[in-house]
């Protein structure tokens, strides 16, 4: 069964180069960047693109396995660490449809954005650092996806976290123009602050997931995904035997994905993460890294599925219920915040949070009823893929806009359609996909989420479907809003001023719009395939993914109950989508396209909507609450501790200890200089002849010294004594040796006398 076991590490890599090289090469590339810098900046940029390409090729070499259905599964390289009381941790990659799909999406989009960045970041002085983090990010992300055990995944997980931190804070000099937030009078934050925030907030999630991993390892004795699933029937009931532990483990485990994928309540870092260069936002904070959480939930879901439906452990279902509720709520909340945001990238960031909510919702409802599992998993993975494509395109488009007119605020844009026609068209298509307009890819994937909710067919899943549906209406509304504010209407004052100074907004250079066009092209292709799949099922991407995942789960030995999808279900989902598009579309049309109603007057004139707007604009007051409680609260607490405990109690203890040490030192000092030292050094003869005389003098001197000289002399005395004790006169040293010898012998002698040891 396992011919890999007998091979040396090198042979394993030679046999399956793709899954190894895909993440090793970009990491090597990252390390090589400083070297290439020596050869010239142009060569360095080309080298970065070349390293990215190697990763794409390695990832693509795995695609044939998707079609042949004969993928290699778990490939182990070598033993990394031997754990006491568990199976050893092995370095390995897990190559199955789930990882192949996600890994190809990541590698391919990363490469396109890499190409885009060569132009977008052109002329930046610190590009070596940029490429380093960028390539290292690709490597870490692929390591995370391809890893076959939780520890290796965590290594990649933290690697992408560090790269994210480094790239959000890329403009760490915090020039005023890079600040984010506002517009004044709202509070603004520098990029380095944003990077730190992202790192800290996701770090909270990481602590939780580590806790869960420890629990799992403690009971399962392994961290390998395949082994975890294969032995689930042994260890899962053991965890469940402790009341509440399984639920806590599930919730803790979800902490990591919730933090990484910016879900409620750890979603607040993502809007600020837009402080980095836009291409970074496109890659890390829209297309790939934030999907890591979705991937990990999908990866672990078979275990909890088995727990829920095979072993009938009610606590296992907590995993699905929590992630479904969190997903749906986040989806709604983030969409509502996107309605009122005034920064273009932030709108897209809220939209990302909201769309990831859909994926989490799909993965969550997959466990709500026995038959919905494959449908939910498929919907999650499909939406992950389609969202990665269109959201990357949207961010890159936004980058082109920002690149052209140097502002992040939508109220400083407007009328850009005639200056940037290509970007406009590409953005509109990608936006249509985001909004879920048929037949683009976004429609099919969002539809899959709705279908998954319907298939689950429990009261909870239907309620969550309603939440998701409302969010879909809001999605279309804010899509219309930002397209209008950016491209349509009249030029803003900012653009007019620019023109007066002779700067005309210009279309993005070819090297920037081509990657966007490729992404948009894929969006269209997948969408059209979806349409075609309606007539010829073998063409449908959704059914293709479903088929692959079904096979994969079947190989894992998971009993599946799939329902044949009935036409009314599909129709219901379509109807929901259409109704929501209609609601969102009509409102959007009224407010922004036809301008029948002036949005601002409408809101500010209405005593109900005004507070709602303020509420939404302030991000449901969550951000400020977090700051108030956790950041400033902690600082205040620290100050209070210092003022009370530290200065009033601990300092006193310190003073007391030092005082008593000085007093003790005084005694020792006197003993040393006056008794011990002369006794040893002067020797026996002198001792007998002059000892008595000296002893007399010394006692007199001792009194004088201890009473009159006081603290200063003893401090120096103590110091010198300790020094002397260490390396002083040779004769002392021999005395020590004799003392140790005697102590050992006498110790044994005495203990033996009293009954031995």
């Amino acid at each position, binding site marked *: 069964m396992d011919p890999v076991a007998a091979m040396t590490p090198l042979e394993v890599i030679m046999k399956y180069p793709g899954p190894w090289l895909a993440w090793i090469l970009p990491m090597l590339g990252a390390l090589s960047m400083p070297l290439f810098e020596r050869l010239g900046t142009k060569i360095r940029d080309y080298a970065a693109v070349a390293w990215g390409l190697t990763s794409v090729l390695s990832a693509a070499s795995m695609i044939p396995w998707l079609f042949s259905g004969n993928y290699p599964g778990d490939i182990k390289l*070598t033993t*990394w660490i*031997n754990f006491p009381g568990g199976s050893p941790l092995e370095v390995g990659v897990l190559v199955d449809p789930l990882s192949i799909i996600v890994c190809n999406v990541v590698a391919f989009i990363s490469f396109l954005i890499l190409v885009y960045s060569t132009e977008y970041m052109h002329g930046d002085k610190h590009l070596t650092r940029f490429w380093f983090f960028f390539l290292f990010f690709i490597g870490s992300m692929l390591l995370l996806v391809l890893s076959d055990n939780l520890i290796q995944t965590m290594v990649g997980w933290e690697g992408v976290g560090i790269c994210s931190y480094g790239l959000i804070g890329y403009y760490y000099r915090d020039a005023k123009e890079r600040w984010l937030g506002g517009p004044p009078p709202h509070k603004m934050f520098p990029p380095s602050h944003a990077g730190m925030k992202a790192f800290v907030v996701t770090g909270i999630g990481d602590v939780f997931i580590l806790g869960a991993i420890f629990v799992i390892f403690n009971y399962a004795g392994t961290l390998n995904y395949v082994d975890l699933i294969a032995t689930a029937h042994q260890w899962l009931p053991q965890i469940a035997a402790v009341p509440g532990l399984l639920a806590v483990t599930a919730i803790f485990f979800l902490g990591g994905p919730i933090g990484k994928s910016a879900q409620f309540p750890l979603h607040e870092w993502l809007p600020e993460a837009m402080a980095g260069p836009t291409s970074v936002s496109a890659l890390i904070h829209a297309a790939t890294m934030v999907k890591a959480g979705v991937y990990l939930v999908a990866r672990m879901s078979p275990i909890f599925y088995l727990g829920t439906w095979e072993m009938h452990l009610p606590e296992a279902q907590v995993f699905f219920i929590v992630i479904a509720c969190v997903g749906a709520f986040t989806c709604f909340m983030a969409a509502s915040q996107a309605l009122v945001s005034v920064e273009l990238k932030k709108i897209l960031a809220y939209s990302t949070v909201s769309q990831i909510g859909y994926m989490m919702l799909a993965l969550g409802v997959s466990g709500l009823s026995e038959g919905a599992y494959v449908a939910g998993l498929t919907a999650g993975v499909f939406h992950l893929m389609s969202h990665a494509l269109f959201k990357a395109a949207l961010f890159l488009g936004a980058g082109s806009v920002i690149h052209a007119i140097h502002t992040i605020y939508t109220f400083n844009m407007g009328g850009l359609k005639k200056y940037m026609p290509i970007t406009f068209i590409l953005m509109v298509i990608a936006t249509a996909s985001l909004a879920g307009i048929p037949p683009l890819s976004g429609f099919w994937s969002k539809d899959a989420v709705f279908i998954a909710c319907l298939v689950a067919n429990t009261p909870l899943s239907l309620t969550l479907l309603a939440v998701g549906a409302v969010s879909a209406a809001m999605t279309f509304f804010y899509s219309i809003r930002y397209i209008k504010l950016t491209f349509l209407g009249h030029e803003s004052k900012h653009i007019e001023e620019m023109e007066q100074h002779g700067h005309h907004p210009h279309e993005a250079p070819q090297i920037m719009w081509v990657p966007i066009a490729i992404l948009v092209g894929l969006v269209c292709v997948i969408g059209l395939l979806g349409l075609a799949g309606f007539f010829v099922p073998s063409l449908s991407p959704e059914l293709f993914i479903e088929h692959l995942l079904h096979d994969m789960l079947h190989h894992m030995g998971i009993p599946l109950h799939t329902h044949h999808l009935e036409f009314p279900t599909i129709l219901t989902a379509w109807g929901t989508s259409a109704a929501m598009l209609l609601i969102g579309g009509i409102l959007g049309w009224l407010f922004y396209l036809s301008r029948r109603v002036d949005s601002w007057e409408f809101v500010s004139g209405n005593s109900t909507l005004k507070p709602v707007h303020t509420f939404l604009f302030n991000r449901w007051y969550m951000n400020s609450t977090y700051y108030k409680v956790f950041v400033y609260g902690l600082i205040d607490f620290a100050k209070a501790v210092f003022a009370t405990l530290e200065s009033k109690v601990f300092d006193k203890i310190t003073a007391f200890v030092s005082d008593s040490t000085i007093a003790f030192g005084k005694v020792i000092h006197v003993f040393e200089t006056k008794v011990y030292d002369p006794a040893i050094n002067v020797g026996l003869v002198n001792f007998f002849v002059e000892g008595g005389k000296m002893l007399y003098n010394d006692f007199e001197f001792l009194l004088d010294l201890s009473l009159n000289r006081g603290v200063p002399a003893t401090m120096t005395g103590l110091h010198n004594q300790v020094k002397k004790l260490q*390396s002083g006169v040779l004769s002392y040293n021999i005395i020590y*040796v004799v003392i140790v010898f005697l102590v050992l012998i006498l110790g*044994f002698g005495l203990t033996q006398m009293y009954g031995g040891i």
Partner: protein
Amino acid sequence: MVIPTPLLMMLSPIVVFLLGFLGEEMKIEKLREGAAVVMSAVSVAAVYMLYLMLKSTPDGILLFHLQAAPPLGACFEIDMLGILMAFSVTLLTFFATLYSVKYMEHDTRLTEFYTLLAAMSVGMMGVAFAGDLFTLFVFWELMCIASYVLVAFRKDLWGPIEAGFKYFVMSALGAAVIFFAMAFLYGMAGTVNFAQLSDALRGQPLNMWLYMVFGMLVVGFGIKSAIVPMHTWLPDAHPEAPSPISALLSGVVIATGLYGLTRVLFLTFDPGMFKLPIAFLAVLTMTLGNVMALRQSDIKRLLAYSSIAQIGYMLVGLAAGTAYGVMGLFLHVFNHSIMKGMAFLASGSIAHETGTRDIKSLRGVGKMMPLTSLCLFIALLGLGGVPGTNGFISKYHLFSAAFGSGLGWLGIMGVLNSALSMAYYLRIMQVLLASPDEGFKAKEAPVLMVAVTLVMAVLIVFLGVWPAPIIGFATAASEALVNGLSTFIGAVLG
């Protein structure tokens, strides 16, 4: 009697001396350096060959009788533990010799230097391979005598002379005590051969004479391995020696003392008997080493005190008395030989370039000597036990061995001490990274010296990230000593 080819490398001091002498007479440049480096490399290879030979034997022991058969004939009995020890020794000797080529180039009397260096290394190897007390003592003295002279190698300065003299007196005392203990053991067992000794004494009811022997062994070997309070010579001797010699002294010589102690104690006594006294000495040693290192102003002296502390950690493994503990001990011996050796070499480079060892006046060296400082950082982080370095791995095993054998308090003391030790390691880093004082200049050390430290730094990180091979090696070594004792005896006695 057949002497296997790999053991012929024990003649390397003679080769180095002859070639060095020849080079001096014939004015062939760098002949002696070349000979010394090649011989030290050959020693590493020879140890590896012995390792392969040992792996192919069924009972895990290689026996070489030099003269007559036991009880009195000198013999080598090489098991996995000896190989691990010899591997640490030869590897560090190789690095130190390579480093000396550049570091010592302006000194005179270099033929003596390299000959003594090789002799010291051979002495340690002999101790590791010895199969009886007599052989052990002969090689022990070879190691000691070579090291006295090397400490006082720069005889025109007063510091080295004083330090060397003190070292000599203390160490000679230790050797005398060991010799006395051996006499006792011979008197009791009628043999000096390890296996026969163990056969005769282990498990016997303890009496006052055995306690005497135990005390003498601890004191005698303890002086050499600087167990507090018999450590007083070390903070003088190690800093005053030339840096490559400091590296060897701190890296392996003191560990050889510990090796001798471990070997003889396990052969003669039951672990339950020496657990508590050794644990007590361990706490004393690590605490005092760390406390004294805190306020040192001389960087090499600080490292010397840190060596004392590290010996304390190693004693934890001995105190645990289990195979796991001994595994941790020798894992740490190996790791410490690389880390401390490199720390001394790197600080030697710094002293070489700046002309001072005073920590306060080294501000900003990190900017001027980036590679050397980077290496020093890695070594210091390793010594402090930061995860990702090999120091973490071995300390982890040591402390968990302490917990495993019911000495939880000892493990806790170790962890606390480890935390305390970071204070002075970080102090060095902070000074090196500070912005330099006005007018202070230094350049990066010569390529050869930097290369040696870099290679060792890579080893530290590599073994910290992928410790599986060396842990396997150390496990086999500890099994040979602790659980394989009966096989050992059986193999020797036939």
